[in-house]
């Protein structure tokens, strides 16, 4: 008797898990579709050899289109200026956890093409 109850509970649990899995698969398909749509939009807006940068900064988000041959130092200078960051501080750009140095290299030389998410932070700021 006890085993039957346990079995019923397990079956109900399994059904719920399957329903959740189906819902998650639906969300995943929608997310993939959204990504494809966004990529297509980017392709339509960008000219060849341009890159769309989405940069998280200490003063919120900065978005801008740059030529792939723009130097990292030039990107930093523009973003610091546009976001009104303190020019006394030294900033660095980070992509996928990697600090983009030396800053006289271009976006292209770091493999940054079409669309990229970067972070701008003050150099140091930790131990």
């Amino acid at each position: 008797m006890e085993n039957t109850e346990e079995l019923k509970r397990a079956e109900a649990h399994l059904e719920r898990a399957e329903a959740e899995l189906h819902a998650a698969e639906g969300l995943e398909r929608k997310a993939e579709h959204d990504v494809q749509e966004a990529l297509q939009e980017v392709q339509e807006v960008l000219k060849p050899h341009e890159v769309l940068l989405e940069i998280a900064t200490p003063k919120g988000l900065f978005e801008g289109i740059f030529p792939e041959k723009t130097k990292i130092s030039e990107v930093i200078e523009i973003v610091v200026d546009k976001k009104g960051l303190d020019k006394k501080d030294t900033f660095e750009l980070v992509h996928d956890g990697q600090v983009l140095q030396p800053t006289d290299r271009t976006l292209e030389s770091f493999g940054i093409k079409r669309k990229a998410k970067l972070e701008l932070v003050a150099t140091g700021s930790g131990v």
Partner: protein
Amino acid sequence: MPTVAELTVAEEVAALRENADARGWQLRALDAVRFHLTLPAKDKSEFYLLVDCNGYPVQPPAWDWCDAAGTHTHRPADKPRGSGFLHNNGVICAPWNRLAYKTVDSRGPHGDWSIGEWQKNSHTAGCTTLAHMALRIFIELNGPRYEGKRLG
């Protein structure tokens, strides 16, 4: 009348929210001076922070690793492993984190820092807003010093 901390948090959280929304980080306000933030690491694990800005900006906020619900702050499994900034005491080692001061928290690695001078500390290096602090933590969780979650 709102406190200085409440006014400062209200102003600075706007920039943090902008970054969080763009990156899919979950930011949940708990009250006027406290919030819960979810940040992803490079191995796809998620880390949670309970941030207490009482007394901010006279004193730095307290950035404490916690669980998804924000109810536990002392479980090793909720903290990252790493070096330097991701200190093995389980606290973020930076002058802009109140918990890094031994005078505030026994886990704090620094008895040599003065909490009242946190903005002038050379290791703060301009990291004086909530959005900036969150970005620095995100970068550490996705950088070479991060070594995964601690074992429970």
